[in-house]
């Protein structure tokens, strides 16, 4: 008998899970239908590819943010961090041209530096939060300002541009495809799978959830809370650096306007996806959908001139709220308590 009960309960669980996942998925589907109705070209291969490629930046960053938020933290610095990493990367690559030429070696050097910078920036956020015992909000608000102004400083107020020949070498990373999918989409897929695996299939993922759920419990379970929290910020940093690596070849430059408001977009993607802002419950799958939803909204608004351009923000805001509302409604009573 117990067998039977357990089985049916497991089924109940997984069905419930499906409904939860369905929330953002349905929202995305509705958006796609609207897009198609507005303009059939929305579903053209070219547009879908553009859409996916564009989601890659925010998506990859948001996957990092899922870890931070699941563990009860927040990172406001990601947008500026991306700008600063892009800037430094460009400076390094440009100055490496003399030594290494304009070939793949220089690009790889740039990418390597990007990862190191992302790692370091994440580490700084993490250590200030855990060892410095300062609220993550304040730490990352501070580093947000710092990175933003550093990139302005490096660019002397203007724009840092990649050496023209290097751009040719690097360009395919954004613009080329592999097996029919653009490379940024592959990067997004790989980061997603890795993130999903890390959050759902490793002890580390469970520790993130436990810390976000109840830090005292996590501590009493002999989890190294500070280390795990710091690591979430490091993961976030590395995600930012990966996003930057595929961002730089797109525009070949960085300036103080690079990545403005990405932090809010990333956090919004995470929460639209169903992760709880106060921590303790994270969903990578939802985050991916969240990123797609946000990009699709922007895409659809470019598709129609029915609405005054000035009201784009209004539409965006309304759609986000409605999408989340629909989604929460379908969770019904089994919704996660955030207290």
């Amino acid at each position, binding site marked *: 008998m117990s067998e039977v009960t357990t089985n049916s309960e*497991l089924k109940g669980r997984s069905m419930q899970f499906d409904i939860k996942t369905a929330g953002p998925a349905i929202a995305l589907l509705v958006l796609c239908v609207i897009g198609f109705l507005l303009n059939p070209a929305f579903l053209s291969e070219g547009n879908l590819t553009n859409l996916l490629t564009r989601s890659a930046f925010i998506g990859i960053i948001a996957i990092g943010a899922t870890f931070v938020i699941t563990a009860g933290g927040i990172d406001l610095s990601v947008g500026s961090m991306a700008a600063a990493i892009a800037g430094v990367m460009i400076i390094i690559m440009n100055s490496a041209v003399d030594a290494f030429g304009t070939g793949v070696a220089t690009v790889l050097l740039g990418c390597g530096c990007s990862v190191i910078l992302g790692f370091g920036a994440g580490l700084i956020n993490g250590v200030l939060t855990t060892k410095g015992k300062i609220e993550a909000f304040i730490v990352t608000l501070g580093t947000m300002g710092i990175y933003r102004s550093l990139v302005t400083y490096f660019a002397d107020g203007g724009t840092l541009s990649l050496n023209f020949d290097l751009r040719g070498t690097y360009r395919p990373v954004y613009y080329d495809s592999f097996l029919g999918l653009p490379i940024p989409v592959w990067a997004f897929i790989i980061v997603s799978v890795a993130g999903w695996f890390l959050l759902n299939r*490793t002890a580390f993922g469970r520790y993130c959830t436990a810390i976000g*759920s109840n830090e005292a*419990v996590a*501590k*009493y379970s*002999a989890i190294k809370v500070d280390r795990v929290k710091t690591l979430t910020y490091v993961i976030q940093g590395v995600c930012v650096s990966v996003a930057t690596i595929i961002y730089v070849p797109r525009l070949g430059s960085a300036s103080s306007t690079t990545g403005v408001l990405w932090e809010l977009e990333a956090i919004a993607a995470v929460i639209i996806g169903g992760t709880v802002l106060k921590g*303790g419950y994270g969903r990578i799958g939802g985050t991916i959908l969240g990123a797609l939803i946000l990009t699709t909204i922007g895409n659809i608004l470019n598709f129609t001139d029915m609405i005054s351009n000035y009201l784009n923000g209004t539409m965006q805001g309304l759609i986000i709220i409605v999408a989340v509302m629909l989604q929460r409604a379908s969770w019904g009573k089994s919704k996660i*308590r955030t207290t």
Partner: protein
Amino acid sequence: MQKSPKKETAILAAERVSKSFGSVPVLFSVSFDIRPGEVHSLIGENGAGKSTLIKTLSGFHKPTSGRILLDGTEVKLPPNGEAEHLGIVLIHQELNLAEQMTVEENVFLGRELRRGGVLSRVEMRQKVRGYLDAVGLDISPASRISDLSIAEKQMVEIVKAISRDARVLIMDEPTAVLTEAETEIFFRQVRRLKEQGVAIVFVSHKLGEVKEISDRVTILRDGQWIATQDADQLTPDAMAQMMVGRELSDLYPPMNEVDFDADTILEVKGLSGKGIRDVSFKLRQGEILGFSGLIGAGRTAVFEAVCGLIPIENGEVFVAGQSANFGSVAKARDAGIAYLTKDRKSKGLLMQQRMRPNLTLFALNQFVKRLRLDKAAEEVALKRAIRRFDIRARDPSINVGDMSGGNQQKLLLAKVMEAEPRIVVIDEPTRGIDVGTKQQVYHFIAALAAEGVSVVVISSEMPEIIGLCHRVIVMREGRVMGSLTGDHINEAEIVRYAAGLKQEEAA
């Protein structure tokens, strides 16, 4: 007779351990030891220092002075539960589970099974299912903790503890919210572990249980070691006496009969909702009505529905003849019904606040004078409550979370009584309260009833129900199975109803 602790046979021992929090001393030179294959119980009044002692023994607190010996050699235990690696496992008095995670995740938290860095989820789930079956808990390993009732959570804590390969298993009031049936299952597990040579420390205020399961008993009073004796030389009465330091008269007050034509003050007709099906009953003025049943029988749910905490799907509630399907707790309170939750940590008290704001929170509107909070009146109320309920906090300005469990419970009782209800529903009134105070609480309840207040007692402690209540309603799986009065209130009857062996014809 007192045995001198034999160090050579003890796995874990405390030697002349003292502990102070800031300038407040809590333990005074206490010695305590645990041997393999024995159950050593620790008893004492609320605030005596039991929890503090065992936290010191498992590394969560550092002793201010004294030594901890593991296998006869002095050790400095690592903090934060890392002593688990040494085989010392502690179940905290306050539930220590991550609410948003599943049972399986919680049971294995911090020591997940993995293969090549990947979680072996199937294996873990199977193991957890095995443990759950062993303790007779009918929930899925994938259930979220936040969806469980508090008793189920306690069972999960127990599962968590027995699943660890402990050499020393220390449990702080694991049975406080368990019914006798569940306690029996739990004891079976304890005996099994004991046979395997695990050393077990058991803290409880249920002295009957202590007598049943223990090999030795240590008594603490006001942070001082009083005695360590073999359990078979002690009776519950003797234990109580040593704990309290004086002779205890009758635990239960004499029962006043309810006026037979007293008004019906609360009537519930055909109530249905989540976890409750077609529940009807009446409560008269001045009556003490007991609710009995197994874990998850729906007793709590009935009164949460009555008080507007969970939605009513069907049925009606009448207070003093007036229809009263309350949509909010505030309305219920204003109509004179107060509900005291058994989940004091997550529903009862603000753990990060001090006593005063907690005490007055439920009836805060009574402390408003010309738009302002009357802090002086609050202070008076606090003094009164401390006296009336014998709340003992050595440092009255600490956060409630740092008070001893029993004293938290007393504060919670005081909080609900601030609203001066006509009907008070007390869920597990003596959860974690020592015998001496229990007696006070029982007399308090009887006095309330004598004043004409109607009291509903939901309790898992059968003697409490039998000794205190005028009438008892037994529930099972969300239904009322029957109602007992007078001489019919006895253990055998209650168990028959609770187990579904007997059911009253619906009236």
